[in-house]
């Protein structure tokens, strides 16, 4: 008798506990959905062809956000042009060349720590090194290099993992027919690892598109009616634009602010979705042997 009563009260406490777990999950999930709906619904009111294709006027209160959109695309491009090749080469080094010694452990530790450095510290680094020491000024180039340093940890890690996942037999087969080590990497290993590498690159671009603190330090401009003509020009960018119109411009029309947030979120999340699609597609056809 007592055991049965005990069992039921234990059943009840299990129900209560599971209720708590579900509630915790709901507390995470529901606000995300609310935020997305709120941004899409309120921001959609601001979206028009003019908003996307014209330069701002009256300190962003009127006109469009084209320079900010383009600036963000240039930034993503500049970041990935630097961070991807270096990341892939470093990934090749760590997976194919490095022996298990103190140097390799130091490199891996450096990468783990680079991933955890606060973005504002990358901003200080970019300001000190690229803007001032290399005299690149407050430019698109300085900002791209800064964001590339920040993206490095991610491109190296994803490349390394993608290359390590290529089965050993592929390498041995290639070496057995007389290919050299580099030929094997170039023609056998890298093509197999490509989907993983690209996934990491796209995620790094998405991250770069949303980063605000570093470009705030390295010198994004708030209001520039002209588009940047060269890498040495100042630039506008979506996240910095959102920061200023939301926090610093009094009397900003609400729908415009939500519109900027919507465009930024759309750019960032669409790149996330692209990365997910590449990952899922490559998983399907991979190593069926």
């Amino acid at each position, binding site marked *: 008798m007592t055991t049965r009563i005990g069992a039921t009260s234990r059943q009840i*406490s*299990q129900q209560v506990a*599971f209720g708590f*777990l579900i509630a*915790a*999950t709901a*507390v*995470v*999930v529901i606000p*995300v959905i609310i*935020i*997305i709906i*709120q941004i899409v619904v309120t921001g959609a009111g601001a979206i028009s062809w003019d908003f996307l294709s014209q330069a701002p006027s009256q300190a962003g209160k009127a006109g469009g956000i084209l320079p900010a959109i383009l600036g963000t695309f240039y930034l993503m491009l500049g970041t990935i042009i630097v961070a991807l090749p*270096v*990341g892939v*080469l*470093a990934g090749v*080094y760590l*997976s*194919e*060349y*490095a022996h298990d010694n103190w140097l*390799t452990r*130091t*490199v891996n530790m*450096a990468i*783990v*720590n*680079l991933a*955890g*450095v*606060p973005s*504002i*510290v990358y*901003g*200080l680094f970019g300001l*000190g*090194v690229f803007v*001032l020491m290399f005299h690149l000024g407050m430019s698109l180039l300085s900002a791209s290099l800064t964001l590339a340093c920040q993206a490095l940890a991610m491109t*190296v890690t994803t490349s390394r993992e993608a290359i390590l996942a290529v089965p050993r037999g592929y*390498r*041995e087969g290639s070496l057995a027919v007389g*290919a*050299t080590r*580099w030929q094997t990497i170039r023609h056998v290993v890298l093509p197999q690892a490509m989907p993983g590498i690209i996934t990491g690159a796209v995620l790094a671009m*998405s991250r770069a598109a*949303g*980063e*605000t*603190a570093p470009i*705030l*330090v390295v010198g994004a401009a708030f209001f520039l009616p002209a588009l940047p003509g060269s890498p040495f020009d100042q630039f506008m960018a979506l*996240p910095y634009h959102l*920061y200023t119109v939301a926090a610093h411009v009094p009397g900003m029309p609400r729908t415009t*602010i939500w519109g900027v*947030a919507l465009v930024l979120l759309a750019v*960032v*999340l669409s790149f*996330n979705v692209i990365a*997910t699609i590449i990952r899922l597609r490559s998983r399907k056809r991979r190593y069926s042997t």
Partner: protein
Amino acid sequence: MSQWRRVHKADAVAVPAGGLARRWRLGERLVEGWIYLAGLLAIVVLLGIIILLIKEGLPIFLDTPPWEFFFGTKWYPVSEPPTFGIMPFFVATLWVTVVATAISVPVGVACAAYLSEVAPGSVRETVKPIIELLAGFPSVVMGFIGLMLLSPLVQSAFNLNTGLSGLTAGIMLAFMSLPIIISVSEDAMRAVPDEFRQASYALGATKWETIWHVCIPAALSGITAAVMLGVGRAIGETMTVLMVAGGALAVPVSPTEPMMPMTAAIASGIGNAVRGGLQYQALFAIGLILFVLTLFVNLVADRVLERQKRKFQR
């Protein structure tokens, strides 16, 4: 690590003698040189950050002794003479991190336990992408949401003069560190071998008792690492606290006051700081402190994670 140990001697034999082959080898050596350089670049960047922060930041101690810098409560960079005490920023960072951790740890671990142990596959497949979506939100968007949606709620709920406070920032930070806490904790719980659960069921434990007394304790080091990573995130986050925490310069005695964490202090001050000036040096010194703090947190988290990984390997 190296896949080549056993086989790489073979390729030296395989190359025939002759000019073409030798030129090939030269090109290869070149590429391999680049590969080594790229491999070392991570160390170069990390060392570069350390050297720069030390070089630009430490000279402030020639003007303001470390004691006054760390424990001074007044930050007046433009008054004459200027004073640089970072206590207000440090305490603000402490408050927002404490609030964020107090919310994100219980919620995150509970969510991870649900996803790993309880949720049916279909629920898991829907919830996980939503959490990944959250991880992809730029911090400036979270700051914007805090500004627009959360701060009015906090203001009316706690009857405050302003909704821009450490509490509001802490809640937003909790959200931003949830994805990493959930995913790392969930991985840790999934790594617990099934035999542990079956043994617990065989002793008559319910599913919940198994989660509480077996799965969570077995995954505890992974969960600890998750919490550390979440804390590191919260300490280093800039835009959200810059937009939402309120930006007041007094030492905050309660999380409901407006405040300015260290990251926000750098972001809002660096635009006005003259290169090499005292304020510039002081801000780099704050950056150095931030760097050391997050470095420590991440190193510990990495260690703990490594140990967790080895725990159930046979």
